[in-house]
C-alpha cells in the first residue's frame, strides 16, 4: 500500500465520523435558533391551498404557521413555515415535511432509499448511519 493509502487508512474513518457528526451537530445547533423554514415548490400558487397540502406537512399544518407566496420568475410557490414559540414540533420535522411535500407536489411521490440494505453496522459506520437515518430532517433548509 502506498504512503497515501496508509495515511488515508488511518485518517479516513475519523474524517468520515467527524464529518457525519458535524452534520448532526450543526443541525442540532440550529434547533433552538431556527423557527422559520421555507422551500420553493415548482407548482403555481393558484393550484395550492394551505389546508390541502399533501404529505407529512398535512400532519402538522394546524400546529405551525404556514404561508404561501408566488416565487419570482415562474419558479413556483414559496411555502414558508414558522414554528410557534414553545411548540414541541422540531426543525427536523418541518424540514422533512417540507421536502416530502415538495416531492409529492412535483413528482407525485417521495423517493425511498434503496433496499434491502447491503451494509453492515460497524463502530465507524454508526455516526454516518445516525445522520442518514434522518436524511431529510437535517441540512440548512
Amino acid at each position, binding site marked *: 500500500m502506498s504512503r497515501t493509502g496508509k495515511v488515508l487508512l488511518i485518517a*479516513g474513518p475519523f474524517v468520515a465520523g467527524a464529518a457525519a457528526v458535524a452534520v448532526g451537530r450543526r443541525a442540532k445547533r440550529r434547533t433552538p435558533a431556527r423557527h422559520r423554514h421555507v422551500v420553493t415548490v415548482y407548482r403555481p400558487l393558484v393550484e395550492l391551498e394551505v389546508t390541502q397540502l399533501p404529505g407529512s406537512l398535512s400532519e402538522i399544518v394546524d400546529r405551525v404557521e404556514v404561508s404561501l407566496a408566488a416565487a419570482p420568475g415562474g419558479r413556483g410557490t414559496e411555502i414558508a413555515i414558522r414554528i410557534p414559540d414553545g411548540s414541541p414540533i422540531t426543525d427536523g420535522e418541518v424540514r422533512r415535511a417540507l421536502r416530502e411535500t415538495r416531492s409529492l407536489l412535483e413528482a407525485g*411521490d417521495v423517493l425511498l432509499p434503496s433496499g434491502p440494505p447491503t451494509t453492515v453496522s460497524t463502530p465507524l459506520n454508526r455516526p454516518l448511519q445516525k445522520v442518514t437515518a434522518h436524511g431529510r430532517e*437535517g*441540512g440548512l433548509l
Partner: protein
Amino acid sequence: MKALQWQGINKLAVGTVPDPELRNPGDIIVKVTRTVTCGSDLHLIGGYIPFMEKGDVLGHEFLGEVVEVGPDVRNHRAGDRVVVSSFISCGSCWYCDQRLFSLCDNGNTNPAITETMWGQAPSGCFGYSHAMGGNAGSHAEYIRVPFADVGAFTVPDTVSDERAVFASDSASTGWMGADLGGVGPGDVVAVWGAGAVGQMAARAAVLLGADRVIVIDRLENRLDQVRRHVGAETLNYESDDIAGELRERSGGRGPDVCIEAVGMEAHSPGPQFAYDQLKQQLRLQTDRPVAVRDAIHACRKGGSVFVLGVYAGFVDKFPLGALMNKGLTVRGAQMHGQRYIPMLLERMAKNELVTEYLATHVMPLGEAPEGYRIFKEKKDDCVRAVFVP
C-alpha cells in the same frame, strides 16, 4: 445476488447481497449486463469522499435488461434493453425543467449531508456514497432504478451493449462539458485528462465544430486513443510545455474553452504535486486542483473553463486573480445525463460517436476487485474495465 462491495478504505470484495426490490411505483429492476469502472469511484474507494459504509455496492455507469416494472412506469416493460443515467432525477422539479437534471430537488434521500457541506444538495447517484443518496450501485447482477421513465432509455437495436453503456455517464459527462462550456464552430478547445470522460469531451468538441481540439495527459496509450478515435491533437505534460504549446496552437490567445476532466486526485510534474498531495494527506485541503489551476491560467481572456472532474470540498491556491482579471466564465456540474442520452444514442447509431474502444478490459463481475486494481494503477494500458455480471 453477487455484487462488488466497498469493505473499507482500499478494500473491495465481491459478496452476496439481497436482491433489490421495487420501492416506489416509478421504479424498475434492471438485470445488469455491462457495468463500468469510473475514475470517480477511486475517490470513494480511497476514502477521499468519506461517506461510505461497509457493504455499499459501487458502480454508476451501466446498461441492462428490464426485468420488473413498477405500476406507474409508462415508458418501459420487461425485456427492454436500457441504458441508465448515473444521476437520479424526478423530471418534474424546476431544476429538471431547466434540464439541469443532476440538480434535481427530489432525487436524493439524504440531502442533509451535501446541503450542509455545499449550501444546497444536488441529486442522488447510483453507487456513489450516502452523501449522494446511498443508492445501491450497478456492480451487481440487478439494480433498482427509481424514476425510470425519466432516467432509463431504450437502446436502439443498431447500437451494441459495448457502445451504448458509455452513454450512461462518460459520454454524457463529456458532452456536457463541451456543451455547457460553450464550444462552437471555430473554437480552440483544450481538454485536461484523456480518460474516458476527457476523450468524450474532446469528441463532443469535434462534433460541435471546434476548429482545434487538444487533449492533455501523461499516458501515451490514452493519447494514442485520442489521436486514433477522437480526431484530436495531443500533448503530454511530462514532455511538452503545455502552457507554451496551447498559446502557440491558439495564435497566442489561449484556448477559447478549457475542459477539466481530471478531478481531485490530479497528478502533475514538479513541486506543485508534492505540495498538493501533502496538503491533501494532512486534510488541509480535500482535493488536488492541479488541472483546474492550469486550465484557468491557460484560458484566453473572456474564455470559458468547465470543471468536469469530481471535487468534494476545498482547494488551496485557487487562481482567483486570473479568473477575475481575465474575465473568465467558470462552470461545473455533475452530469445531466437525461439531457444528453437520447441524442448520444442517435449519434452512436450513426457511428458519429464510437465508444467501445474505451473498454480495454472486459471481465466477469467476480474479478471486479482485480479490475479496479488494474484500473487504479493504470496497468496493462487500462482505460476502463467493464464488468459482465
